[in-house]
């Protein structure tokens, strides 16, 4: 995996995770499936990227985790967005739209 791709992904990944979790509670696989769903299958997040991101975001105070039971009665670690996470979602969304608009303009320019 090239360096550039990783960087792009990292910035996007935080936003995607925050958005995917929303106000709900998800375990790792749940987050992964939810992202797949909301991006219409474009992004399939592998655990090698997902877990570092989840842990990093929890350490940053954007997510909170707790142990719970899964649908299949398996013990799983669930993640929930915090107040700080909500703010962060706002910040990142704004950044992303700026970039997206800028890119759109740039690509349309002749």
């Amino acid at each position, binding site marked *: 995996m090239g360096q550039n791709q990783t960087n792009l992904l990292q910035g996007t990944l935080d936003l995607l995770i925050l958005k995917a979790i929303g106000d709900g509670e998800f375990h790792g696989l749940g987050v992964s499936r939810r992202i797949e769903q909301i991006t219409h299958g474009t992004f399939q997040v592998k655990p090698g990227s997902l877990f570092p991101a989840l842990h990093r975001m929890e350490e940053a105070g954007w997510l909170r985790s707790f142990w719970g039971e899964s649908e299949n009665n*398996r013990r799983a670690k669930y993640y929930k967005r915090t107040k700080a996470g909500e703010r962060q979602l706002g910040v990142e969304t704004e950044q992303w739209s700026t970039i997206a608009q800028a890119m759109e303009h740039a690509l349309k320019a002749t």
Partner: protein
Amino acid sequence: MGRISRLAAAARNLLRKERVEMDLDAEVRSYADMLADEKTAPGVSVTEARRSALAEIGGIETVKQSVREYRAGTAIEIFWQDVRYATRQLLHAPGFSFTALLTLTLAIGANVIVFGIARAVLLNPLPVPQPNQVFSLQGHSANSFSFSFPDYQDIRDDSQAFSNIALMRLTRVGLGAGGTQAVPVWGYEVSSNYFATLGIRPALGRFFTPSKEIRLNGEPWVVLSYDCWRTHFGGDPDIVGKNIRISNLPFTVLGVAPRGFYGTERLIWPRVWLPIADEPEVEGYNWIHHRGDQNSWLIGRVKPGVTAAQANADLAAVAGRLAKQYPNFDRNLEIRVARPGLFGDLLGRPVRAFLTGIMLMAFLVLFAACANLAGFFTARMTSRARELGIRIAIGASRARLLRQLLTESILIALLGGVTASCLALMAMRALSAWQPNTDFPFEFVIAPGPAVYLFSFALALVTGTIFGLLPARQIWRTDPNQTLKSATTTAAGRRFPLRDILLAVQIALCCLLVTSSFVALGGLQRTLHIHLGMDPQHVTLAETDLQLAGYTAEKATATQQRMLQAVRRIPGVESASLSNTTPLSSNESSTGIFPPGTTTFGVATVRFNARYYEVAPGYFHTAGTRLLAGRDFTDADNAKAPPVAIVNETFAKQLFGTADAVGRTFPTSKDKSIRVVGVVENGKYVTLTEDPTPAIFYPFAQDPDTATVLLVRSSRPYSEIIPAVRRAMAAVDPAVPLLQLSSWQDALSFMMLPERAATIALGILGLFALLLAVTGIFGLASYTVSRRMREFGVRVALGARHWDVLRAALGRVCLLLIIGSAAGLALGLAGGRLIASFVSQASAFDPLALAGAVFTMAAIGLLSALLPARRALSAQPARLLREE
């Protein structure tokens, strides 16, 4: 952005590591389980689902590791892990670790010691405010940095670039601090603006106040150095205003200099400062108004913002004006600024060249050590290739491995830095305590400060990084599949792997240092056997100055005669004589010589300057100087007899054009001329390297002096003669202090200080380099042999003879030795020139030195390849093949 939150997380991760790890493990496993649940569908077995889930995840450990790497506080944890791992690795191979540590200690230690010396002698600023404004004034050549007092006054008043210029003259005085004997101490006679120019404030009392005019006999005041005040006056807080005796003259203490102020010469620490105005009384000879008597040093402070070039231009203008105004004296006057601290350029230049050279050599040794250790680490890495392969295979990133290996190399380098600092500390203590055998107030203090430790630390860090990184390429080349498949790694088929190049470089450096050491040693040897024009063996010198006990030159004569009689009565003394000073004693004076027929006597009509000595009858016999023609002085050559002199061969040839000068006369003033009664062989008078210099000897009785050197020739051991001389002189007048009492050879040893220092320094560095080369060659040879033992076994089995095996085992090492030595010799020839510039008599093209170097390299090659060769020859095919 959640900094506190991250900090808390870091603390939790580090403190509750087990809990965090268990959580992580459970989380990833539960993910895997759930993924497997998803995949479990009709027709798919549970094991099959689980296998495909794990494949999709890419390994539970790998995921956990990637989380760990992002985790807060991971860096610290990994660092500790690496340190622990590195420590284990180093302890695991004690032989390797010890060799590496020793290598590092020697190499870093050598650098730290040289740096410490350079710092003390060159780099530390002088103990004055704004030291970069302070310059020594220097004459046209490196040797001339003395000026006359009248010239000083003109330079001081004329120059525009300087805010002030001060004058100082080193002189020896007898310090009367109670007790019968005056203590001989060295001090400066200084101009009244001396302390003001340097910007020094007194610790007690006050300093001389600047005044333009000279008031002779006006200010019998003395300033004591801090050390002098503490040692000789017990730190008396009421010392200011008290009367003390200087050379038996009454002086009033004006003040005490601050602690740590030792004037502007680094190697000379004066004990007292006296006004130059009192010079006639203190020295017993009034030269202060003679423009021709150039015997004082000048130190100036340039105005803020003035550069050295501007100061030089200003001084050149001043010198031009003086030359016009006083053509008789200042016709050739040149003045420029020089860096202060080491007698202008006299010592400054050679010392700077020498230290630069040595620093370069020390760096080379360090570089060789780096090459050596890099070789070791590369070899070790190759044998650890399997371990590395496995670790990469189970998910360690290459960067992580690199960090780990670097931790290992830096850890041992830092350890080496610590031991090197200890070594340097001891060496510096020893050097500071060392006193050369001279009565000069020679001080050589190397205080290892934070800068030295910092230097040591930085060197260790850089060294560790270099020899850690060089073998690291191996990590990138490691292909886990390959390493796991075959037990013995097959090295890439490059003709010259890095390891070999490193060894060749190292051998070259070693050879360079060995050659340099031999060149310096050859120089020292020749210097020791140089023809001095005297025979110092079996001669004891006793030096004093009766002035220190309050004698005048006229009164001194009788006491000097009684001293001479007293030492002649010592049993076993073959001959004894007297002079005011001896050649090569650092107390040399010269006088202008006028050719026969001179009518006006001034600097312009001087034919040449000759070294002059005042000697008693029997001096040449005692000193071992051969009389070529004429006669020695006798007791009849006294003050009432016509003036006579004995000259050396060069003098005779330069003045009369022939060595046959006995009976000829030459004038010294309008109404005095001197007849030559004898001619003696040439000698060395100031330096060992000087060209033949004219010298003249006057009869002591015709030119009395309070300066006294008794020369005593005896074949009894010095340990018996020296105390006997001391007793004999004390019996004549106990108040006379002995300035120096030692064998003449010991007294001369100071003259050879540069040669000795260079030879010792180069010798030690050469030895280090030698050790490094031996370990390097030994390391490579035994490594090659151990890796190819199996091949040798096969060869022996196929009928190879000893010679074939040896060639296979050591051919490469021999080739490297030859290439490296050849390069080193070539470099040595170039470097020898540098050495010849500070070691007299050293020659880069010294065949003995070159032969010595070649021989040494061959010997170390043989020595270090001996054991591996024996091992290669012991290859037993049956056993080796069984082992595989």
